[in-house]
């Protein structure tokens, strides 16, 4: 084979190889562009998902922060109101403790003694505070003669703001007819009225 024909053959092989390579590069380029294009849409979906989930998270966080702040504020209000209620009760009790000179108080004590006697029987022992002792003794002597019951007033005084504590002679039954216990049992209802006043809800 002559040198010329060898060169021609080499050129031909080179040219064929070149065009094959170019075609391969072209097809690789096309594939890459296609992949890029398809990735774009999946990336967009991924991006949208991330944004969507972040929005959800942000919304949850916002709800959580607002929720707990509202609740904390409300709870603080409850504590403040409760301390105001406690103060009002302390002042009310102080006022009641000083009310034993009023005529209504004498009537109230008479009613409490009668109530105790009705509930516990004709023979009972009564206790009261130091301030009321003489008054109670006077009322009991009136009551004993009126109702033919045997009511004994104990000289052992108790630390209460007013009213009486009664017990049956054998000590098995007792009745707490003190102002303290009456206030305690009415406290839930009184609290409601105090709160309405504090919040300006009373018409």
């Amino acid at each position, binding site marked *: 084979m002559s040198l010329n024909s060898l060169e021609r053959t080499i050129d031909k092989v080179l040219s064929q190889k070149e065009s094959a390579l170019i075609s391969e590069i072209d097809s690789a380029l096309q594939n890459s562009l296609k992949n890029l294009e398809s990735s774009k849409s999946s990336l967009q979906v991924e991006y949208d998902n991330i944004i969507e989930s972040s929005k959800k998270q942000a919304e949850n966080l916002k709800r*959580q*922060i607002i929720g*707990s702040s*509202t609740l904390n504020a409300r*709870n603080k209000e409850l504590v403040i*109101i409760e301390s105001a209620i406690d103060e009002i009760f302390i002042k009310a009790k102080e006022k009641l403790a000083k009310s034993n000179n009023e005529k209504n108080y004498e009537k109230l004590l008479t009613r409490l003694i009668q109530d105790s006697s009705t509930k516990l029987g004709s023979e009972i022992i009564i206790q009261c505070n130091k301030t009321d002792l003489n008054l109670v003794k006077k009322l009991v002597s009136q009551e004993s003669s009126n109702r033919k019951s045997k009511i004994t007033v104990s000289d052992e005084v108790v630390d209460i703001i007013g009213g009486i504590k009664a017990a049956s002679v054998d000590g098995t*039954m007792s009745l707490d007819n003190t102002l303290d216990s009456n206030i305690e049992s009415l406290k839930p209802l009184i609290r409601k009225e105090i*709160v309405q006043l504090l919040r300006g809800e009373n018409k």
Partner: protein
Amino acid sequence: MVVDGVTKASFDELVEIETNDGERRLGKVLEVGSGKAVVQVFEGTTGLAITGTRVKFLGKTMAMPVSQELLGRVFDGLGRPNDGLPDPVADKFLDVNGEPMNPQSREYPTSFIQTGVSVIDGMLTLVRGQKLPIFSGSGMSHNILAAQIARQATVVGTNEDFAVVFAAIGVQYSEAQYFKRSLEESGALKRSVLFVNLADDPAIERIITPRVALTVAEYLAFDLGMHVLAILTDMTNYAEALREISAAREEVPGRKGYPGYLYTDLANNYERAGRIKGKNGSVTQMPILSMPADDITHPIPDLTGYITEGQVVLGRDLFRKGIYPPVNVMMSLSRLMKDGVGEGKTRSDHMEVGNQLYDAYSRAQEVRALAEIVGKAGLTGVDLKYLDAGDSFETHFLKQSPDENRNLDETLSRAWDILATLPEGELTKIKDKHIQQYYKGSK
């Protein structure tokens, strides 16, 4: 505790007991007669001396102070504050035993509640006023599911108020903390009322807890017009307490030692759900009970099933496969779903999609069993598609994260994704117009 020399005590009357140390406890009268009263002490009788203990009959039954301020609060099993805050200021005091709802004034439940849990919203839809229990087993994820529903439940598309009353009955301290934290962290506590009765609290307290919770639920619903979801977990602990007290009273035991009136007692609680004509609110109940030894024929789930309107059953197999929530849909049913979904309520294709999913999953289960015998090679092309649909149902639809809140559109979209794995011709439960609109598979 037996109190002698009693003449005027009444059944169920509240009793205050004062110990020698001046400690005060509450109790209620269980029996009266022959000058004696049997009193069950709520806080237990430990430390009560025979002499010196004083008993005060309060002349009233147990009442719960109720007001809107209860929302956002945590109480113990008897309704006493457990969050360090003062007693709630009562709008009124309601007897915890409630008043029976007049059957004539009951309104049929027809409105959807979204729980954000795909399997419940898509296939076992909860309807306002319904009582839909969750039957679980020991150690399964019912408490996580209960907390998730409490956090996520909502009424969609209305501005009506929604509240959750959550009663934890006989739960461990760690579980109680989990419920509380879960509601606090999600910001859902402000619309919730939480009652926590711990496992070490006396049995009698457990009897009161659901009653107190339902009293609050009824007040929020029928006095304040809110839509209330009452979640009671775990009613098995409640029934155990009932058995304990019944045994102490020497009553003749019924099945498995439970008292003969277990059905009546459960019904007294479960029937405190519903809607009332002319009133805005509703009480929807989700009692949760763990079936001893996963036995659905046990008296507690058995009797519960007679009273409630369907059930959501958690499956041990799914739980072992790590699927949450492990709802065994083949055993589960919401009897009121048909009335609470569809055009104008949720979406027109909702019921059909739910039915088709049931159908597909049921077929997938059959194919799975067949594949275990003949191998996958022996299955037809359609069978293989059902096999894929079954797997996809469990991983794409049923399975979801405990903090993942899916709206109904997302749930139905996932359902259509599963149905897309089946040939169009297999969708026999769905109308053509819905197939044309939503079917994503190759035609």
